[in-house]
């Protein structure tokens, strides 16, 4: 990755953060924290790695991305708009009656959304299904899925973790948004949900740890995932919830509260977008 390429990704990420703030402020509700922590992961995937055609969202050979932590819909919508699946102007209709942008992802309403999510814990299984279909059809598309670190308290995640290993789904790469916060507090306080690296490894996954806000590190990890045969890869991405907006960073209270107009102004100013 050249410095220029990195700068372009950084700028794209900044724009996506701006969209997230604006759309949440316009909606008056929604989830900023977990959207902001995943911006670099989605920016990297959609603008550096994935194969897709925004004019033909159902192209059978496309790579797939499943947002298992569906409450982070704003980061997905902002990224899809930047990628050309629908106009950027649509973003401010988030959560409105009649909008294609539902509170949580709806694959039938939004072009580019691969799976309807919002009930945590189901997306890894669905991604496995897509990866199984790819193997069955001898297609070379890849499947990516993003999990929350609170989300992996759901038992179904571990059922799916076994499935991915059992069926040797090396065409699947999962990301864990390891931001250490959920709704009621820190991950470790809510439920002794520690050492995801060791746990996924013991289930048989290839596990990598990266700084989830560093494009070059994400690229190295995804390259390694792609080169890893016979097992799925989990990229544990160390992230900061609320990343990029100083007063939201690491604050549990910004999980599911939209910024008020003056807070949005402040956030946009910090991002250099005011």
């Amino acid at each position, binding site marked *: 990755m050249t410095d220029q390429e990195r700068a372009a990704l950084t700028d794209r990420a900044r724009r996506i953060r701006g969209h997230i703030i604006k759309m949440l402020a316009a909606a008056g509700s929604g989830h900023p924290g977990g959207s902001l922590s995943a911006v670099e992961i989605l920016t990297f995937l959609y603008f550096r790695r994935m194969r897709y055609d925004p004019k033909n969202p159902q192209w059978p050979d496309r790579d797939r991305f499943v947002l298992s932590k569906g409450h982070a819909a704003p980061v997905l919508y902002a990224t899809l708009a930047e990628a050309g699946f629908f106009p950027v102007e649509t973003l401010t209709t988030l959560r409105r009656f009649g909008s294609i942008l539902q509170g949580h992802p709806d694959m039938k309403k939004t072009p580019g959304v691969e799976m309807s999510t919002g009930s945590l814990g189901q997306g890894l*299984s*669905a991604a496995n*299904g897509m990866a199984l279909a790819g193997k*069955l*059809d001898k297609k070379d598309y890849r499947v990516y899925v993003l999990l929350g670190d609170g989300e992996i308290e759901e038992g*179904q995640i571990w059922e*799916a973790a076994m499935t991915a290993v059992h069926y040797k789904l090396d065409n699947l790469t999962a990301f864990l948004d390891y931001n250490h916060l959920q709704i009621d507090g820190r991950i470790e306080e809510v439920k002794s949900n520690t050492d995801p690296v060791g746990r996924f490894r013991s289930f048989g996954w290839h596990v990598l740890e990266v700084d989830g806000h560093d494009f070059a590190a994400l690229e190295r990890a995804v390259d390694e995932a792609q080169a890893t045969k016979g097992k799925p890869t989990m990229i544990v991405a160390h992230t900061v919830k609320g990343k990029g907006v100083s007063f939201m960073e690491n604050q549990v209270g910004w999980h599911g509260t939209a910024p008020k107009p003056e807070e949005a102004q402040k956030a946009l100013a910090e991002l250099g977008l005011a």
Partner: protein
Amino acid sequence: MIQKIATRDAYGQALVKLGRENPNVVVLDADLSKSTKTAGFAKEFPERFFQMGIAEADMTSTAAGLATCGKIPFISTFACFATGRNFDQLRVSIAYPHLNVKIAATHAGITVGEDGASHQSIEDVALMRVIPGMIVLSPADAADAEAAVFAAAAVEGPVYLRFGREPMPVIFPPERKLIIGKADRLKEGTEATIAATGVMTAVALEAAEILASRGRMVRVLNFSTIKPIDGEAIVAAARETGAIVTAEEHSIIGGLGSAVAEVVVKHYPVPMEFVGVQDRFGQSGKPAELMKEYGLTAEDIVAAVERAIARKR
């Protein structure tokens, strides 16, 4: 005499036939393939069969992912687990995006027998019926079960199929075609109608014979489709026979009886009686013992018909 076949056996055989016709059909099972009879498909099409282990929630959402890629997944386990361990997955992963997944549940109802209450699903129809867009099929015999499998595969979207464990008397000819949303008039009569589904259709026919021997002629309707319910057949039955008794191997809350009552109350109120499991759990026992204990015999239907007729104005 024609050999009795369980609807789960017919399901297993139909699945293999369907698999030969349609390469997009895939099957998932949760460590019960010998009992659900998906093992035959697994043997013939090993690459299209996915053993998911004892993980029903995972099985359900995995099927959703497969369906997004053009596959037609059939997921199978016992009815209690196929609707209970994974209700939210059925709701959000499959039904909300209206994905083309077929939930083929076996061992429904109390005729599961000796395994007892934990394994006797008497709530599954209610659970599936309430999910928007879900089609609910409840075949009455082996030919009907095979027809249900093909009908389910021919329609786009989620379908729940309810199969039983016990061998069933033959009702339909082998060339049976199931039209989703259409009830079958199996017997003509004017004094009352018995509306039955699944295992209870054969019992309803038996009850109609008993009533006929007493000079009472009743109509028998079979509902292989519980949702969408055949409203026309119900209204006609209400208008022409003046009383309706529903019969199902399921709780009287939320199943066929409720579906029929919803139509009757709105369009043509007549006296109704409900034969089914009252608000209680099952227990261990032989299927015949349980049918008696839970009020699901031909005599129970006869008594219900007499009560309904007595309430006619």
